[in-house]
């Protein structure tokens, strides 16, 4: 069998004439972590609902490990663990009771239920909360119960919708470690709008904007976009831009914030030394020079903005 676990083809969802998600296609392989990025209302949750069979697509289809979600929903759903935006918790149950219900509903056989519950609790750091009512847990712990519920039956595909919302920094770190660990044996799809998170845990990134996929690729591609071929210059007596453009390798000069200049150069042809020399000999008053790292936020804004323009 191939290693493709999730196969979404031309997923489209129309809400009252408006396309919430249009023509989203992607494949996910076993052991990969896919990050879904997008501004609010971009269609991340809608896409996830369609993948998990909670929402019927207006067009297109989903296959989980080769099983069609529309034709064989039961078999396909058995392979998925899903944490929706708001964790679906029965507040009147204790953690143990709730996880046991989750395990049974996901088809874990009677004798293994206890073991599955123990394992899920251990992985999500819930062991001390076993006998507590879910109602009385803090938001962060409730979120963990939600994640435990999604991985209890050891599914092939784990789908987490904004898993780190409402957690404190230490818990966020734990959960990220857990997601990385899950990525080893399962496929994970997670949505978020916290960008560093994507950089830390994901192998692949998809940016979705206004229901359309605007970027899809490895995390390294995104990182490269981030570093770019740019230098940031701080000069006390800046010369005319032409003087800078005359330097070998420089292709563009533009003004940046706080009186700085942004200099773009050709790939692999760093003009840093030449600029320093020119600055010294011409008395430009160089006070800073450093590579210009666009933040991931900027890349994100660029990508989503390009599409809009």
């Amino acid at each position, binding site marked *: 069998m191939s290693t493709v676990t999730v196969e979404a083809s031309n997923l489209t*969802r129309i*809400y009252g004439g408006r396309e919430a998600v249009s023509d989203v296609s992607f494949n996910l392989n076993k052991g990969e972590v896919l990050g879904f990025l997008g501004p609010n209302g971009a269609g991340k949750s*809608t896409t996830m*609902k369609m993948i*998990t*069979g*909670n*929402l*019927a697509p207006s067009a297109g289809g989903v296959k989980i490990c080769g099983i069609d979600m529309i034709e064989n*929903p*039961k*078999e396909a*759903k*058995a392979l*998925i663990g*899903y944490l*929706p935006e*708001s964790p*679906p*918790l*029965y*507040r*009147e*149950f204790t953690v143990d*009771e709730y996880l046991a*219900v*989750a395990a*049974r*509903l*996901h*088809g874990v056989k009677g004798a293994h239920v206890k073991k599955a519950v123990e394992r899920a609790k251990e992985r999500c750091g819930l062991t001390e909360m076993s006998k507590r009512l879910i109602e009385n847990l803090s938001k962060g712990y409730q979120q963990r119960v939600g994640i435990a*519920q999604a991985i209890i039956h050891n599914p092939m595909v784990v789908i987490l919708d904004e898993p780190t919302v409402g957690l404190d920094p230490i818990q966020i770190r734990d959960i990220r470690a857990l997601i990385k660990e899950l990525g080893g044996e399962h496929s994970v799809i997670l949505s978020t709008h916290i960008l560093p998170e994507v950089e830390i845990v994901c192998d692949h990134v998809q940016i979705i904007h206004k229901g359309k996929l605007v970027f899809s690729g490895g995390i390294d591609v995104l990182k490269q976009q981030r570093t770019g071929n740019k230098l940031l210059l701080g000069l006390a007596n800046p010369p005319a831009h032409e003087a800078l453009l005359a330097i070998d390798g420089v292709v563009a000069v533009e003004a940046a914030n706080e009186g700085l200049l942004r200099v773009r150069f050709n790939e692999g042809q760093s003009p840093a030394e030449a600029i320093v020399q020119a600055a010294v000999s011409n008395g430009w008053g160089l006070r800073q020079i450093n590579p210009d790292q666009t933040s991931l936020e900027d890349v994100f804004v660029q990508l989503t903005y390009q599409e809009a323009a």
Partner: protein
Amino acid sequence: MIFNIIRKELKSLFSSPMGWVVLALLQFVFGTFFLIGVDQYFQTMSGAMRPEQRIGITAFVGQSVFGIASFVMLFAVPLLSMRLISEERRQQTLTFLFSAPLSITEVVLGKFLGLVSFLSIVIVFIAAMVSSMNLWTEVDFGYIFSNVLGLWLLVASFSALGIYVSSLTSQPVVAGIITFIALFALLILDHFLAGDPTSTMAYLSLMRHFEPFSRGLLDTKDFAYFILFIITFLTLTIRRLDADRLRG
């Protein structure tokens, strides 16, 4: 799989005081009526000199207990059924059930059977209470059986309507009130149309179909009515939830 949902529903009823309180209160009410029934039997029958005036103790007490049971259930069932789906909708836990490898039919049937099995506990208690008279006298078990069956079908019909109304809204209280009004209207429908015994509307009344059971008469016609009533509302519920998935 259906069994797992039934189990979950019963667990959620008994994990809050709700289930226990309802059971206790219902048992208290039925116990009181049972006691009054037995008490009054001797008073009434000592005054009834002629043989044709006399009725058996099963019919006398049974009428009082099962009569009040059908009335009390009118309040109890909406109270229990209102949460079934609307609460899950409100807490957004329906996703939990829909993401599990279950069909919507299984979810609905599980929820329905969960509630019915809870209510069956009440009915079993009533049956046991009335049958306990067998210790001192001879009891007409056929009469009890037909009453229990009638009450059970009536309660199951209440539940089916309740679960459907519950699937329409995300406010349990709204579901409870609508269910109660709808059931009440269905029960007393034949009172409004008492003047016209052939009226089709009156034929739809739940009470009219419960009444033969309470006289000890098992009629397939009434049996079919209840079964159709239950199937209709469960199907509507399934369709309603399926529409959620399709329309979002």
